[in-house]
């Protein structure tokens, strides 16, 4: 059934800038997340947060140098990974979490979902997990109808994949040959349940796409370059008008489902292995250095740039005022 997308990647195929963009985006995603967790611990951010630490390769790899501003994404509820990779300003994301008017919702607040940035193709997200599977066929239909070559990339977890809308979505996408790239972020767990306890699959979740005649494969989502190439094929297929692709990207959560989750349902050995041996940033950094693409110092400089950007973003978000109570009456209707 689903084939494993595996091949040697060659860093020489990429410009140094592109390679460093992958790196810096991943670092930015992780730092954003770490600092957000700090803000939560400081009591500055409410609601529940689902950390995306450990899956940065999947988002950076699929988006950076694959998607344009006018391509659409429906992000997943885990971390702000895809939003950051798609270029949503960090201050706006922090603003959403803090509920200040700097946020994309101008003070209504947004947690892990409901940030939006249509100018960058970030069309928002639903609180009912997996609902993006239905909505994405609409944005893709729109591009196709208007004769553009815009692509819609939809992210969803292994758990969300089990929701009923997947069927309607894959059927429409296959039928109308819609320019959609399905990216199933399979981190093996939906809250406390392992995929093996909740999913009936031949071998892989991607097998579900096969019956629709939709090309599908399983890829190591923590290998940023491989992820990039797998997605690139799918994006190009979509742009050529050849329809959807289903990618199951394997990864793992470094933290619990939400901040505060005891995370005691996971085998500590397994978790340790993912953290130590399969961390997307750590491994990619090692490879960059090993293959002589850049020096430790250069990477350190990139890290510092990120730190500066994040500090500025937090300050900007925090300095912005909370809205007045009248804000809740604004914007229901156009």
């Amino acid at each position, binding site marked *: 059934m689903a084939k494993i997308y595996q091949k040697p990647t060659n860093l020489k195929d990429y410009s140094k800038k592109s390679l460093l963009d992958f790196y810096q985006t991943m670092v930015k995603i992780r730092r954003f997340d770490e600092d957000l967790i700090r803000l939560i611990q400081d009591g500055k951010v409410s609601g529940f947060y689902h950390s995306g630490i450990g899956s940065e390769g999947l988002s950076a790899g699929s988006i950076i140098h694959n998607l344009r501003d006018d391509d659409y994404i429906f992000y997943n509820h885990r971390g702000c990974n895809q939003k950051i990779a798609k270029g949503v300003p960090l201050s706006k994301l922090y603003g959403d979490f803090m509920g200040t008017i700097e946020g994309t*919702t*101008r003070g209504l607040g947004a947690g892990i979902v409901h940030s*939006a940035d249509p100018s960058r193709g970030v069309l*928002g997200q*639903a609180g009912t997990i997996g609902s993006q599977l239905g909505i994405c066929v609409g*944005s893709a239909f729109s591009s196709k*109808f208007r004769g553009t070559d815009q692509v819609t990339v939809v992210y969803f977890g292994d758990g969300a994949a089990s929701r009923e*809308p997947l069927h309607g979505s894959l*059927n429409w996408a296959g039928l109308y040959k819609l320019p959609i790239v399905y990216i199933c972020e399979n981190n093996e767990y939906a809250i406390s349940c392992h995929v093996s306890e909740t999913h009936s699959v031949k071998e892989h979740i991607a097998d579900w796409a096969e019956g629709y005649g939709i090309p599908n494969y399983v890829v190591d989502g923590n290998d940023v370059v491989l992820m990039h190439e797998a997605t690139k094929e799918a994006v190009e297929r979509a742009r050529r008008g050849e329809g959807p692709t289903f990618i199951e990207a394997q990864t793992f959560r470094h933290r619990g489902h939400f901040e505060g989750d005891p995370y005691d349902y996971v085998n500590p050995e397994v978790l340790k292995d993912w953290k130590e041996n399969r961390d997307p940033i750590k491994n990619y950094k090692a490879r960059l250095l090993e293959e002589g693409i850049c020096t430790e110092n250069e990477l350190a400089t990139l890290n510092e740039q990120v730190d500066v950007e994040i500090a500025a973003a937090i300050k900007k978000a925090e300095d912005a005022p909370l809205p007045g109570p009248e804000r809740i009456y604004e*914007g229901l209707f156009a």
Partner: protein
Amino acid sequence: MSTISKGEVKVKTITMRDAILEALTEEMERDPSTVLFGEDVGKFGGINGATKGLYEKFGKRVFDTPITESTIVAAALGMAITGGLRPIPELQFGDFVGVAFDEVFHKLGKWRYMHGGQMEIPVTLRLPIGIAGGSGPEHSQSPQAIFMHAPGVQIAVPSTPYDAKGMLKTAIRDNNAVLFFEHKVLYDLKGEVPEGEYLIPLGKADVKREGNDVTIIATALQVHTALDAAKTLAKQGVEAEVIDPRTLAPLDMDTILNSVRKTGRVLIVHEEQKTGGCGAEIAARISEHALFDLQAPIKRIGAPDVPIAQSLYLEQFYRPSEKQIVDTVKELMEY
């Protein structure tokens, strides 16, 4: 279709089905970003015939979908938020809004607001409703009242060809979601519609008959039952004012309250079950804003609070009747 000239304006007498078809045709001609889709809406022309000929006229802008109500509405939302399309989906029966409920109640209604007002939702969802010909508990309902509790959706419930056409055209041009409920019995009802363009604003009730003694607020098919009852009552010396809110959201309380202040007596009639029907909210608002104008209790007539039987014989006992209305008004007049 007969066309007669009334003063300056030419009017013609057509069915509500044709009025809807005219509205769809005119708006699709006017705006190339409109797309119409649903089950069997294309070559087949829709199971109620309300989209007949549109596929032939507009080609790929009219298409049949798989049986996937939830995906149909989700797709409409997705099309709308790209800013590129103005979708006009149809569900074959309004009852099926239940299988697309999250998409309608939570997504069409909230997407714009919850994302900070950054997107527009120009979706008009057409939903045939009502008891008609023994269709049973899941093909006869009038589920519109539920959506009064849904922030962000507008609810249109036309009762005449004239209203249907003018409101549907407005709905399609509106940049917010509109649920457009069409009573199946009304598809064959004929009425006068002027030649040429006109629009009816959403949120403006229509006084279908003036009267000083009692206010009857009725929706959809019940507007006609109420008008029949009003005629009978007139013969008995009771002049009923019949108000059709036309949209439940926005709800034109000004027109309703003005009438109540004049008559002091209120009867609300709708085909959906009495409990939790649109009459509940309307009565509650009257009891808040015009309590001291009332001379009699506020009465509501709706279907019994049980599922609608499939039997053609039994279903007549669900639909509010002229007699029920007349009797209830007489009761009100005794206060």
